């Protein structure tokens, strides 16, 4: 009969083609190989690379779509179904359900996190894992949110990527991205109280494959001290009498700098605790070995009547390492249909930067998207029990208070490892996934009043667990339950 219907109807022919085992084998093998390659990529480079090229790549998603079609078509090829097909059909539909659940979850649900403190305010906003661009349009001064992840862009100076500015004919051009932008200081002229002696020093370490620039100034508003990775402090003062005293108990290394009165040179004193290790004079271009790991200092620039300004720039580090304190961002400019191009600037995550072209001003902000949730969550208690006789945490226990922002109803919840709290909670919400689930994610060993919770809102959950159950029951039926003939 099957051969007969294939011969007579093209539709059946198509169904049998789409549901063929050969296609299934091709799908199984390619997906398996892609997954294997992705894990090695992740281990060699970074998990985002594996995501961009494989897991979240359009071709991979499309290929999973083909898998769904194949799974569906193969159940049709067995039509008319008999009792012996039960397990087979349940299993294959289970996989389809699971994949549908995944699509719904990633389209309409989101993951995020929220950091709470026992002495902090209730939060009604969570930070999602999705980056977005905030554009203030000059047409209506309205804020537009555009999803944007710089890791997926791959622009170059030769071929920038363009985004429209809503409500105008302007476009935003992006010609470079960076995973780690750091504030890059420079000296700028200043007058009045803001003016002082300002200097730019460079630090470099061969061991850490890193270099960084620090700007200090004696004028008002300019930074006078720099905490070197929190491990050493560098202080500039107009005269040595203005330098703060060193803690006699302290073990922290320090570097004190005082500009010379007459020439543009710099006196330095290097020490630890109250002990002075070395001292001397630095001229621009001079180097100094600090004795902090293998860090070296170079005086790059020193000038009077100056202050420090800083703008983001890509950190000068070994490309394989993420620089400390660096944030992601991109290099952007405005263009008009006439081909005019405005001045470009680096836009770092978490900052609002104006771009100008002619009379138009567009403010851009980039960062992780914030989501409002229809309730607030407050941390009332956070406990970290330890393994007996050690400092190793054995659990994390957060007591939280949810408050419905509309009705004002309150409800408390407890979050332990493996035991999340849900809002609104209840059987139905938990089964469908129309529910906000809070799980313990991170803690701060330096601040035991603080905890970070992972937040999940997943409307695809119903499909996921029903599909999962179907797969398990289906395989069991297929392998071990024989219908009586």
């Amino acid at each position, binding site marked *: 009969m099957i051969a007969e219907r294939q011969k007579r109807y093209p539709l059946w022919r198509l169904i049998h083609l789409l549901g063929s085992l050969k296609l299934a084998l091709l799908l199984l093998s390619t997906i398996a190989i892609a997954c294997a390659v992705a*894990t090695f990529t992740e*281990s060699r480079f970074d*998990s985002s690379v594996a995501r961009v090229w494989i897991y979240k790549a359009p071709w991979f998603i499309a290929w999973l779509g083909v898998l769904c079609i194949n799974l569906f078509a193969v159940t049709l090829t067995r039509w008319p179904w008999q009792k012996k097909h039960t397990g087979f059909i349940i299993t294959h539909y289970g996989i389809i359900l699971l994949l549908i659940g995944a699509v719904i979850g990633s389209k309409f649900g989101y993951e995020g996190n929220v950091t709470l403190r026992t002495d902090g305010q209730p939060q009604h906003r969570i930070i999602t894992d999705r980056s977005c661009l905030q554009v203030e349009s000059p047409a209506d001064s309205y804020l537009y949110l555009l999803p944007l992840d710089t890791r997926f862009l791959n622009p170059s100076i030769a071929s920038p990527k363009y985004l429209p500015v809503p409500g105008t004919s302007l476009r935003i051009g992006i010609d470079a991205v960076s995973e780690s932008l750091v504030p890059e200081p420079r000296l700028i002229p200043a007058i009045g109280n803001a003016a002082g002696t300002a200097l730019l020093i460079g630090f470099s370490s061969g061991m850490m494959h890193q270099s960084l620039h620090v700007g200090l100034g004696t004028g008002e508003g300019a930074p006078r001290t720099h905490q070197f990775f929190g491990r050493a402090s560098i202080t500039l003062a107009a005269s040595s009498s203005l330098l703060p005293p060193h803690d006699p108990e302290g073990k922290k290394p320090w570097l004190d700098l005082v500009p010379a009165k007459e020439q543009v040179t710099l006196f330095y004193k290097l020490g630890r605790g109250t002990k002075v290790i070395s001292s001397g004079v630095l001229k621009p271009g001079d180097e100094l070995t600090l004795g902090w790991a293998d860090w070296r200092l170079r005086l790059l620039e020193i000038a009077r009547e100056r202050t420090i300004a800083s703008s983001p720039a890509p950190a000068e580090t070994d490309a394989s390492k993420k620089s400390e304190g660096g944030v992601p961002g991109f290099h952007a400019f405005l263009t008009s249909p006439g081909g005019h191009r405005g001045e470009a600037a680096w836009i770092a995550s978490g900052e609002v930067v104006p771009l100008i072209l002619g009379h138009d001003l567009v403010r851009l902000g980039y960062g992780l998207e914030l989501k409002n949730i229809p309730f607030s969550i407050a941390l009332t208690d956070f406990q970290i029990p330890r393994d007996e006789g050690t400092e190793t945490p054995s*659990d994390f226990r957060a007591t939280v208070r949810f408050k419905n922002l509309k009705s004002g109803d309150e409800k408390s919840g407890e979050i332990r490892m493996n035991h999340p709290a849900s809002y609104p909670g209840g059987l139905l919400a938990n089964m469908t996934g129309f529910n906000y689930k809070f799980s313990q994610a991170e803690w701060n060993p330096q601040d035991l009043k603080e905890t970070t919770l992972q937040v999940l809102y997943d409307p695809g959950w119903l499909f996921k667990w029903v599909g999962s159950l179907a797969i398990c029951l289906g*395989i069991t039926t297929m392998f071990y339950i024989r219908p009586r003939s």
Partner: protein
Amino acid sequence: MKRISIHLLVALISTVSIASSFAELSTPALESLIIQEGGRKKPYLVFSEEILRSLTGKTSIALNGPGSPKKDAVSVVTGIWMDPSTAWRGRELILLSNRPLKKHLGLDATRKFFSWNELVANDVLAQDLLEASETQKRDPRAKLVGMQKEASDVAMRMNLLDNLLRGDSFRILPPEAGNEWLAPSPDEMPLTSLRGAWIQGNQQLFDRTTEDFKALVALTGAAPPSWKISLEVAYQKAHPFRWAWILYAASGIILLISRGSWERWGYRVAASVAAIGFLLQAGGLISRVLIAGRPPVTNMYESVIWVAFGTILFALIFELIYKAGSFLLGAVPIAVASLILADSQPVILDRSIHPLTPVLRDNFWLTTHVLSITLSYAAFALALGVAHVALGRIIAGHKASDALYTYLYKTLQVGVLLLAIGTILGGVWANYSWGRFWDWDPKETWALTALLGYLFLLHGRLTGLWGGFGLAVGSVLAFMSVLMAWYGVNFVLGAGLHSYGFGTGGFPLVITFVAFELLFLLVAFLRKKSAQRA
């Protein structure tokens, strides 16, 4: 029971004057003394063996150089405790086996053990450790790699010896409040008495002080139940998994050599011997579950033991149904190899029982997710064994029967079902503990890859794209993906959220195994070709 101040009670034990004579005492009385270490209370025997293993990689050593009589862990550790003289710092006690590190430090590459004094005087090591601590101070979550990791392992061992010599590690006094046990100082009981007896060479006094002290600790109510301590001492001494593999090996040999009229009897004896080994192994696992209070699948050592157990379990079940012999024959080499590996590689496969990282402290999920995943590994390992029996027959110039291929298919089915269930349960657990169902974590991804690989194998067999021989070859090849999901993600990739199982070492061993398997497949393939031509 009411807690009684231990200090008060201890003071009742008589003090002994310190004499100058010195003799080694025997130390069995100490074995069941309760000591708190690494987040739990354990018998002194277990503590000593773990400490000596961390220090030297072994549980007994020849203290006075090669050739001198070997001393067990309890006597060595007690020797340090009773007489913490500077001589210990000059003894070659600290394991340093990494060749590149020895070269880097300018140490003799032929030696495996070094003294504390030698290492502390090494400037290059000091520099390495400084760099390692810089790395960790900059980012406390940074993983040390390469030479820094090796150097910090050595420093950890040096530190361990230091703590022993200072007496800080011997936390045997229950506290009056809280749950942090204390180490007695030299002028505190029972250490004063014990050291006194030790120096006098007074065995009777030493044993009596120990027994009195144990009785006192039991009185405080802070001690774990005595059956637990006795069970752990018995478990530590009995080596049930060693006896299990010896019996499995015997079973395999009997199975191989019984031919002709002996075959039926041989099969019965072999199956019974394997069943006894299985019971021993089950006993060992049950002890471990009782001691640790959780399923025995929380690190690489436990999972290797468990997979060996599962392989024999499935083989025995199949033997009960089919009485084929080939399941047992296939399972035995795998179980024996796994158990020998677990017994002989204590540095790579750590057998000590540690408290779990918080995310794993859920016996429901551990039992459902981890047990089903590891049992699927066991079923696939059995399939690997059965495939070897089939391919082995082909190499030996025989034919593999269709029944054998059917057995192989049925074994693979067990694995596929368990891996599918286990992977999905993992997703459900992750949804609770990490707040997402699936996120392409390497462990998740490799479980999926292995599952897809086996599905590919079964689907291809269904279409007739390959026959029994192809199924056998596929069972061997697909097992490589299980190795990757099981060992590779934790030991080679070292990325992702399943980081509590991460470790290092064993890579050459695994690569040798993979190379051997590929060679085996090649030989089988060539034999099959030549048989077809003939």
